[in-house]
């Protein structure tokens, strides 16, 4: 189980941060497409897939390195997100009596092809979506709930990073997140999460 992609989406469903994390080998920690490391294998693989130049990451930072396919998946999941948390649902998704971070955790939105999408909604309407690759099918409920707990903890950390980003007086309030500190923090947390998951399974 590996986290392959994450997205931060604003109140009006505008994309604030889209980022892919690719694992080449199950045992490796996640690396992101943007890395300028001279990994010839990875370059080869990218060039093979990259018929239209979508993966050309030279002009981009870590933000926006999300592949088109993952972006489509995130779009689809957003619809489900709206359905679950919108005004028409009447707050049915929330466990009654949950406060704070527990109240913000939406949970599994939907499985799409081989990934599952999890969501988290802050009080200010910022949505975090996380795409997780499913490897085993026959998982027992213990594993799933442990995985859910890990993801919830990860979302809380992501929320903290986001808050720290907004407290920077130079950050733009609406618009793409372009902060080195945020990028580095996300990378660190994703690597820790993926390492933890791969050591468990």
């Amino acid at each position, binding site marked *: 189980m590996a986290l392959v992609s994450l997205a931060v989406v604003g109140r009006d469903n505008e994309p604030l941060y889209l980022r892919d994390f690719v694992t080449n080998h199950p045992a490796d920690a996640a690396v992101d497409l943007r890395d300028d490391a001279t990994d010839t294998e990875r370059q080869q693989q990218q060039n093979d897939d990259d018929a239209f130049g979508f993966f050309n990451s030279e002009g981009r930072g870590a933000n926006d390195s999300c592949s088109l396919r993952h972006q489509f998946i995130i779009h689809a999941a957003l619809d489900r997100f709206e359905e679950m948390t919108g005004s028409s649902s009447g707050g049915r998704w929330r466990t009654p009596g949950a406060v704070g971070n527990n109240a913000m955790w939406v949970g599994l939105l939907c499985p799409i092809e081989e990934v599952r999408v999890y969501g988290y909604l802050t009080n200010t309407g910022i949505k975090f979506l996380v795409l997780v690759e499913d490897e085993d099918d026959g998982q027992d409920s213990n594993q799933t709930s442990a995985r859910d707990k890990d993801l919830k903890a990860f979302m809380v950390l992501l929320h903290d990073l986001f808050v720290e980003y907004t*407290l920077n007086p130079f950050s733009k309030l609406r618009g793409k997140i372009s902060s080195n500190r945020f990028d580095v923090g996300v990378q660190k947390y994703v690597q820790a999460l993926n390492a933890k998951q791969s050591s468990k399974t």
Partner: protein
Amino acid sequence: MSKSSASASGHALWAKMPKANAELFALTYGSLVTELVRDYDNADEVNSQLDRIGHSIGVRCVDEFLSKAEVSGINIPPCQTMKDTADVVARIGFRMFLGVSAEVANFSPDGSAFSLFLYDNPLSIFVELPSSEEAAATMGGAGGCDLSKIKYSNVFCGVIRGALEQVNLKVECRFVRDALRGDDVNEIRVELKEVLMDGAGEDYQEE
């Protein structure tokens, strides 16, 4: 003053000062800086405005500093050399008003200049300066402000300058190393330009 007694005095005075929420303080200063950035288009202008603001703070701070020390029974003897001044500013002054301890080092051979090192800066706890490419991209080519050149904590330089001016020491301060720009510490270089004579003395002499 010996080093340890200066630190102890600084700590004692800090304990008596009313406290404010650190986040509120940092965010207020941040909004001040962004407002200045909006008003003035270039980084040098913003830096000099911050220095000016610091100067008026410093001019008022020094009286408070000396009177509070007096009232608490902490004796700050008149400084004989620049080294004494440096110690008082760093260990007692900065400690009392900001709660952070600053170190002094790198004295010039004639003792008229020193460096003040600040390891943690309460003003910049959330701040991340945009990199120069980002700044260029957001401002376009229309002569916008290069945010990466801003000396975010330049107000400290103004404060030191203003405070020492009130005790007849004309100094020049500037930031040599800035943690926000990637260095490991904040270093302010303070250089004595001249010792001012009392203005009243001159008037009397002329009469």
